[in-house]
């Protein structure tokens, strides 16, 4: 089990519209259900219009700042390749990175930058790249991809399965729990 006295810091990043907020709601509520103090911080507003989006999630025995201190992210989950590198101030060499190879061109940019995967490997040795197309194939529907990413995250933070289950049930649309729970399981074993 995760050490009850240790604070766990998770940074989720991506692009407006990718569903970062829902995914981070699921993770923070799962931590709460497991008996931790939990906080989450993000910014709504301008960022919704296709801009960069981030969500800080922190849980442990007692959490003060909702914002992760620099270089202390335990996990960086990025739903878009380039966005991973926009938030390096929070990451360090020990940060576990889970990075989707999804590439979304920002407005007014013609060419997606190259060599980013090598850069991300320089950021942290512990990086897992995920091909979103492969993942969607496995879970059957792209609607559930963020819950599958929560499953991948679950590999590294070890909250009880019941907490995840309860949280997912609370957050996904009625009638989609089974499909989401399956996607979570696939993410966790992938």
């Amino acid at each position, binding site marked *: 089990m995760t050490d009850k006295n240790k604070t766990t810091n998770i940074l989720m990043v991506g692009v407006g519209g990718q569903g970062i907020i829902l995914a981070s709601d699921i993770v923070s509520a799962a931590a709460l259900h497991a008996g931790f103090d939990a*906080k989450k*911080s993000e*910014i709504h*507003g301008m960022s919704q*219009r*296709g801009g960069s989006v981030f969500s800080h999630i922190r849980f442990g025995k007692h959490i*003060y700042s909702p914002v992760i201190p620099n270089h202390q992210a335990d996990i960086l989950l990025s739903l878009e390749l380039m966005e991973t590198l926009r938030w390096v101030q929070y990451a360090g060499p020990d940060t576990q990175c889970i990075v989707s190879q999804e590439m979304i061109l920002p407005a007014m940019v013609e060419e997606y*930058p190259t060599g980013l995967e090598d850069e991300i490997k320089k*950021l942290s040795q512990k990086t897992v790249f995920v091909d979103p197309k492969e993942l969607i194939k496995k879970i059957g529907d792209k609607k559930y991809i963020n819950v599958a990413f929560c499953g991948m995250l679950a590999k590294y933070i070890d909250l009880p399965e019941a907490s995840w289950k309860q949280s997912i049930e609370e957050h996904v649309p009625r009638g989609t729990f089974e499909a989401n729970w399956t996607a979570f399981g696939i993410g966790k074993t992938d």
Partner: protein
Amino acid sequence: MKKILLSGNEAVARGAFEAGVAVGAGYPGTPSTEILENLTKYPGIYTEWSVNEKIAYEVGIGACLAGARTLVTMKHVGLNVAADPLFTSSYIGVKAGLVIVNADDPDMHSSQNEQDNRNYARSAKVPMLEPADSDETRRFTVRAFELSEKYDTPVILRTTTRISHSMSVVTPDSEAAQSPSLEKVRALKPEGFSRDIKKYVMIPAFARERHKVVEKRMEKLTADADSFDINIIEINDTRFGIITSGINYMYVKEAFPDASVLKLGMIWPLPWKKIDEFSKKVGRIFIVEELDAFFEIEIKARGYTVTGKDIFPVTGEFSPDVVRETISAAMGEPLETKEYYASPKLPPRPPALCPGCPHRTVFKILNEMGLTVTGDIGCYTLGVLPPWSAMDTCVEMGGSIGLAQGIEIAGGETAIKKTVAVIGDSTFAHSGISNLVNAAYNGRKGLYIVLDNNTTAMTGMQPNPFSGERITLEASVAVDYELLGRAVGMKKDQVKIVDAYKPKDIEDAIREMLDKDSLSLLVIKGPCVIWKRKRKKKE
């Protein structure tokens, strides 16, 4: 009751419900919008999106004088609009509690300035509370109503974006939760307005007396503040002490868990005996406050030597790292700078007008026509960025039409033909209509364009007086642009409504109306695509 995760905004709504609030009014504005949206979900509470913040505040004064505990919500710049009623409502006080939630936006995540609204508490002479997490937000909301009634004053609850939009653990008051028709609410059943002209009619003779009452009230509050349990002294390591409030308290505790701290829950008026007591127990005093040197100036004026804005920035948000690095350096123990990975330069990813937004076309046309565009507040402000690059000014809500008038007056005929104002439907209702009246009244000849997307989109799809729905989504009047034009003396051909999906019609209408030697109002209608999608899901 079991613990739940709530955002600061959800926690305000929860607290207001627990306090037995009967009326909630406000105008949308990031980061305050979700307060009223959440309050609407509780039973037995009347809520409304008012046309603007001034009106919301006025509704609040009336409702509280008629005996209903009332919550008024707005973002920081909204209080500028409502500043007129604020200052005099300080004189007339309340009957049932009146609490104004005002959300500041340090770092301007979604705002045009980062003014520090703590200054309003001092200048309007009203108490202000500032919570540090969601559960405090819930409790402070209840407390604000109690203080409002006890001291006969409106109370401002100040949040910042990091409080409004962060989630933390809340333990709701189960007693309040069990029954929506709880006794507290019944006990507060509005008894109606009763006449009290010396208190409610602020002619100079009465207002002079009320000003004295206000000064006495603030003296009493200042004295009582020392015993308020929301002003907390924590004595630990006494090498230095930190005076702080709100989210900065959390940054301080993250950075220096063992530091001595005076945490101010009521940030105006200040608890002087507590500050005196704290200063005797610690060595060097640091003031940790985002934006203005608000505490610092007051505390220095009392004769203390403190360290604040000489080492901390006046702009932007703080963080645990800002606090840790700045204080460590000032204490002569600078942190080691470790070499971390530096990322390559990435192309920026600013927010943009949504793909599929029907109003993108308008900016393309305005750009191609090379017009000067006075802009306004909302999604369409994004028209300033490439590829549209079709906006030249943006100041405040409703300002586009006023600025265009000034440009016309100073620039004359040539300016009229080259200048248009662009404003959204909600913003037009907020304060654009009075600008249109001003233009008609003073003989202006400019072209004003309303981009009507049938919602208040930037803040997350709130209905407005042009969309024909209220906050509860029940049907309402939709203000008629043509009749509005008629009412200010505009002829039929001076007001045009065109479809946002017909670029040729838009371009023709702009050319035709610019050529005309008279005031024109062009309404371009195309519902927001996100609003349409959300509405479909609901149905």
